[in-house]
């Protein structure tokens, strides 16, 4: 899949930006706050209906304007025009594919797979388990619509069940315990499916991580990812173990009015040569791992969805040494189309600009072809 062009109207610092892209590498060069990351985020927006940035939709409307609009043209087996219009007055957003309004996220997620590498990725290897679950879930969701539905179902079950636990804490009644049993069964049913999906995914994804890591670092370091669920008490009988653990924690769940067992508490452990990256990894190894994870995501989604994802790299070379940067820039040639932000092209003399690559100079929300 190729993104051939986009436009941004009254989106953050951009008043009226139109860009035609190269099918190869697209570099966006500019200082901080000039609007280059905004271009990547608007592409992410078109693929997922959401910003990756923490900015809300209303905060994304350009100063003194009433709405913003984003548009893009994707070319795969067919051509699709995507438009997003947000109006500040109604606080309403519309997502249109070829003029047709789309309302359910399950109809969009995975339609245009996207991979975004950003400096915020440090949270994946160094942050809390929630960051790793978010990373893993976003990959599986893009690859499998079924998974996204189960995930939404599971999250709703969690909210309902904790609300019921709250009611039971306040007022313990027998009729509520029958009700809790029903919610517990529901929790196990969809929770089990999530665990099975994640288990299968980790098995497959490990091969992709190894390959990407090796291309960047060579063969001396062997990376791996392990799935950690049920606090490490994994079992071949997931359902049975799930019920057993819930039974053990029953009193505590009632006391704390919280869901204490299930895949919403899972973690994923990254290792290099069998050593836990979180405990033993250097800064360089962390960064390399983060980059390898995004390349692995790209090639995994390409294989499972049969579509080439849009690859966005925000300031990837800023924190890497020259040797790894060269490897990565060579690796990008295998990707095909990619979108890369840089603070200054001159600082990256190792980047060989090929004939079909495009270089855009971003200055205060305006774009010049360089």
């Amino acid at each position, binding site marked *: 899949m190729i993104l051939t062009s986009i436009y941004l109207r009254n989106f953050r610092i951009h008043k009226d930006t139109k860009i035609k892209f190269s099918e190869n590498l697209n570099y966006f060069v500019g200082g901080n706050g000039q609007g280059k990351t905004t271009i990547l985020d608007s592409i992410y927006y078109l693929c997922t209906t959401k910003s990756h940035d923490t900015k809300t939709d209303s905060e994304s409307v350009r100063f003194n304007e009433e709405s913003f609009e984003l548009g893009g043209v994707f070319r795969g087996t067919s051509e699709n025009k995507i438009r997003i219009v947000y109006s500040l007055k109604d606080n309403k957003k519309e997502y249109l594919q070829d003029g047709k309004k789309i309302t359910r996220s399950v109809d969009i997620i995975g339609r245009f797979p996207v991979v975004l590498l950003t400096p915020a990725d440090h949270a994946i290897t160094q942050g809390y388990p929630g960051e790793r679950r978010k990373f893993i879930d976003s990959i599986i969701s893009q690859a499998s619509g079924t998974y996204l539905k189960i995930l939404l179902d599971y999250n709703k079950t969690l909210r309902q069940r904790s609300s019921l636990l709250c009611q039971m804490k306040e007022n313990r009644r027998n009729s509520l315990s029958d009700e809790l049993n029903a919610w517990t*069964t529901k929790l196990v*049913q969809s929770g089990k499916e999530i665990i099975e999906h994640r288990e299968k995914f980790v098995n497959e994804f490990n091969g992709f991580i190894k390959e990407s890591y090796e291309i960047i670092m060579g063969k001396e370091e062997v990376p791996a990812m392990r799935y950690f669920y049920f606090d490490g008490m994994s079992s071949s009988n997931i359902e049975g173990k799930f019920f057993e653990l819930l039974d053990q924690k029953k009193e505590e769940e009632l006391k704390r009015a919280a869901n204490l067992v299930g895949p919403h508490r899972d973690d994923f452990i990254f290792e290099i040569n069998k050593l836990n990256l979180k405990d033993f990894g250097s800064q360089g190894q962390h960064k390399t791992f983060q980059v390898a994870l995004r390349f692995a995501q790209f090639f995994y989604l390409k294989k499972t969805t049969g579509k080439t994802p849009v690859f966005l790299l925000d300031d990837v070379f800023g924190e890497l040494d020259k040797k790894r940067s060269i490897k990565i820039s060579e690796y990008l040639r295998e990707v095909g189309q990619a979108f890369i932000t840089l603070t200054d092209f001159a600082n990256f003399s190792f980047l060989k600009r090929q004939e079909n690559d495009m270089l855009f100079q971003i200055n205060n929300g305006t774009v010049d072809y360089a």
Partner: protein
Amino acid sequence: MQIAEPLLAAIEELSKLPGIGKKTAQRLSLHILKSDNETVASLVKAIEELKTRLRFCSRCFNLSEEELCEICKNEKRDKKIICVVEEASDVIAIERTHEFNGLYHVLGGVLSPLNGIGPDSLKIKELLKRFESEDIKEVILAINPDTEGETTALYLARLIKPLGIKVSRIARGLPVGGDLEFADEATIGRAVLGRIEL
């Protein structure tokens, strides 16, 4: 801008209806204003009779003009089988398929602790009473296959099965996320036929 009081009142009332915004309410009001007296009178009559002539069936809680609804009164229906649904609108949807000839029971919603809806807020006790007074052999749970609907079905199956009554579920045939009310007739028909035993 000054808007005439009666028009304002009509817009206000219409926009209280589900799915009707201020703009639509205004368009509807102006349309009614332009209609002839006869059309308006029959609209008013239909709305009034909806409230005065319809109530809930005392046995199955379907819409009814009398104490018992047409379905409960119909001697030709199979009295050994009950189809449990969320709302009266689901009865209409299933009736349209002509695939089901048993009785119904309208729950009036689904379990949702977040909205304070527990078993006591639904017609579940009333359903259990029917197993004592009627000769029911089978229950089909035709509840929407969303998170709350599936949990409600689990809850009911656990209550009903120990009574020796066959319980089945028709959810999987319906499009996920689709409300029963909007599923096309063929889909529901297939679903009723393809129910799975719990």
